[in-house]
């Protein structure tokens, strides 16, 4: 399996993340139903509707992201005010997939044809970014990207995917460094970083 193409790498990591989220929800479902049936058994008669009561809490950060999903993405969510001058326009949006899963994607355009492409799949229930992809382009040339596999939730992710330190664009000989992001930054940090290229 090749991982030379960053888009394919994103697909593979997102594919694995979706599978992991599904498995998590299936396990959660089994646990909740088993517990509720056990409790119901001791109480006698039960309505199936009673099983569907809330079962899992969420803290404020999850609620904030939920609020963004439902109210729309504001410029203040994208960058600090001192970085705003670098941004010409953006197509970043957040939308929900399922009840407690969100996807953030789009691109942010800067001067000098610099573009930051972003993708994140978020699990609000566990307050985790399950997979991300951040790529910086200048025109048709990809300058660098952040390796999404560093936070891949799947423990059995292949070592083979980790071996390539460079990648090649399919139609050219451009080789770009892959960057490592050990702690996923928020967009303001990424935007500030691109802004430094313009200074």
């Amino acid at each position: 399996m090749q991982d030379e193409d960053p888009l394919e790498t994103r697909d593979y990591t997102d594919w694995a993340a979706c599978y992991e989220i599904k498995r998590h929800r299936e396990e959660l479902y089994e646990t909740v139903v088993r517990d509720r049936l056990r409790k119901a058994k001791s109480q006698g008669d039960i309505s199936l509707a009673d099983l569907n009561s809330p079962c899992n809490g969420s803290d404020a950060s999850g609620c904030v992201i939920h609020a963004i999903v439902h109210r729309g993405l504001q410029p203040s969510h994208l960058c600090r005010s001192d970085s705003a001058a670098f941004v010409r326009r953006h197509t970043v949006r957040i939308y929900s997939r399922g009840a407690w899963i969100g996807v953030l994607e789009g691109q942010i355009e800067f001067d000098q044809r610099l573009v930051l492409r972003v993708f994140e799949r978020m699990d609000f229930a566990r307050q985790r970014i399950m997979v991300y992809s951040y790529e910086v382009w200048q025109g048709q040339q990809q300058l660098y990207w952040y390796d999404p596999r560093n936070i891949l939730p799947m423990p059995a992710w292949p070592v083979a995917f980790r071996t390539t330190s460079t990648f090649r664009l399919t139609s050219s000989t451009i080789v770009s460094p892959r960057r490592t992001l050990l702690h996923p930054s928020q967009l303001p940090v990424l935007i500030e970083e691109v802004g430094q290229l313009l200074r």
Partner: protein
Amino acid sequence: MDQMTLTEIIQDIHAMDEELWHYEARYGLRTNTFTSFTRRAVAG
């Protein structure tokens, strides 16, 4: 919304099923084949 219901858990499962179908169609592989393949790659 600050708590999860069984209905919401099921919604998440269905949503992830749709994503998995999308990737299966794109790459012509079932998800279990994909995960088996990646596990074998780990084992070498």
